[in-house]
Structures are given as structure tokens and as C-alpha cells.
């Protein structure tokens, strides 16, 4: 199962989900779905935008449990 480490990365950078939503251009609801591992699929564009804002790699964001 793939786990999204959005919570940990936001905490490390001192950023809130709302701020990330504003920067990335994805709704808060969708980011919340991603954060809680309820997403079934993610667009490459969304992935790239999150990694750009959080200055991390895809492997830092998504890990396999």
C-alpha cells in the first residue's frame, strides 16, 4: 500500500495544508484526500507541483508501506 508523507513534510517545513493548497493550485479537499491516503490516483502535474513547493523528491512524498 502506498502511503503519502504529506503530513510529515509539511510539519518539517512549517507549512499548513491551506498554504500548500494555495501554492500548488489544488483544492484543500483534494490535498486532504491525498494526505489521508484516500486518493486512488494522482496526476503527474499535481505530484510535480507538490514536490516543487515542498522542495522534495517523489520518493520523499510517496512511500510503500
Amino acid at each position, binding site marked *: 500500500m502506498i502511503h503519502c508523507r504529506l503530513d510529515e513534510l509539511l510539519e518539517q517545513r512549517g507549512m499548513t495544508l491551506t498554504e500548500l493548497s494555495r501554492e500548488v493550485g489544488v483544492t484543500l479537499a*483534494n*490535498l486532504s*484526500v*491525498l494526505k489521508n491516503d484516500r*486518493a*486512488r*490516483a*494522482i*496526476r503527474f502535474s499535481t505530484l510535480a507541483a507538490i514536490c516543487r513547493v515542498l522542495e522534495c523528491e517523489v520518493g520523499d512524498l510517496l512511500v510503500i508501506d
Partner: protein
Amino acid sequence: MKTAFSTKPSAKVAAKVGLWLLLVTACGVAVAAILRLVSTLGYAFTGVTTVALPGLGYSRTYPSGPSVLGPKVQQVLHGGNIDLVLQGIPGEALVLNTAASVLGQLTTLLVCAAVIMLCWRLLRGVPFASTLTRFISIMGGVLVLIGVVVPILQGFSKLVIVNSLDNVLTVESPIGKGNLEYYIVFSVDLLPVVLGVALLLLAAVFAKGAQLQRDTEGLV
């Protein structure tokens, strides 16, 4: 879910206003259809019936009036067809005629119901649902069935009515006499069939839309 309405705010507002107008109009038409249905049933009980028949007689050549066809005929209206206003038609013809009229009004009600449901779903932003698709396909099937059944009922009714009139085969008669198949073909109205087929196609499109919606559910 992105739809064609979710672009500019002004377009969204215009679309919502349009949908509300359509929904209110459909409700109004449905109410009118119900009232017309009630009046149809009321007229059935008063015993006065208006029947459209093909002009198979020779009324253009000889003068004719209601008395030629017997005491049941109150009026003969010449237009594209011959409309007879009758009092006291045979019971079986009354039942068949009333059933055909009721089914005809049901066509209007079913189409209004489909429009109301679709508008409501679009206003809520959830147009694709399996229950809606199933309902629309059932409505479409019923409409096609009505389009097939109503001409048969009306054909039988007209044959019974014509057989109950006097002097139908004389030169003074405006209506003449046809056979059952002719009266059925004369009574065919393609509108319910066309609307039914359109609703069935719409149901197929909505089924595909529901499948695409399920595929993109949870997509971030």
C-alpha cells in the same frame, strides 16, 4: 468534477439560472398535463367525445351534416381530417379512447419528469448516477411502448365508433369506412417514439458518464 459549466463565474450563474428556469417550466407543464388528464377523464364521463377520422367519404361533392351519420354525431368539423363530436359512443370505444388519451398525457408527464430530474441533478452538480440512468432508460422504454400502443387503441376505438354510426357507406357520408389497419396507421404519432428513443440514447450516454466518473473518483 469539472463540467462545461465550471469555467467562468458568469457562465456558471447563467447556466444555473437557465436550469432553474427549465425546471420551473417543466413543473408548470407537468401540472398542466395533470389538469388536462383530469379534464380528459371528466369529459369521458360526460359522454362527449371528439374523434379525428380520415375523410374517406365524398363530403366535398355532396352536402352533408351531422344528421347523415345518425343522432350520436353533434358536429362535423372539416379540416385536414374530419373531426366528429359525438355523444354516447359505445362503451368499449369510450374505454379505448380514454385509455389512449390518458397514455398520451402520460407521455408529457414522463418527459417533464425526466427534464426535472436532469435539471435537479445538474444543479446539485452530480449528474451521473446509476439510479438516474436506470430511471431515464425505463422512461424511454415506456415512451416507445406508448407510441406503439396508443395508435392500436385509437384504431380499435375508431373502428368501433364508425361501425356504430348510420349511413357511413352512403355518398352523403363525409367519413366513409376503413379497416382496422388503416385506422391504426392513421392514428400513428411518432413523437412519443422519437422522445423515447432520445431518452434511451441519453441513458446510454449517462451510463458512460457514470463509468467515467467512477474511474476518476479519488483522482487528485
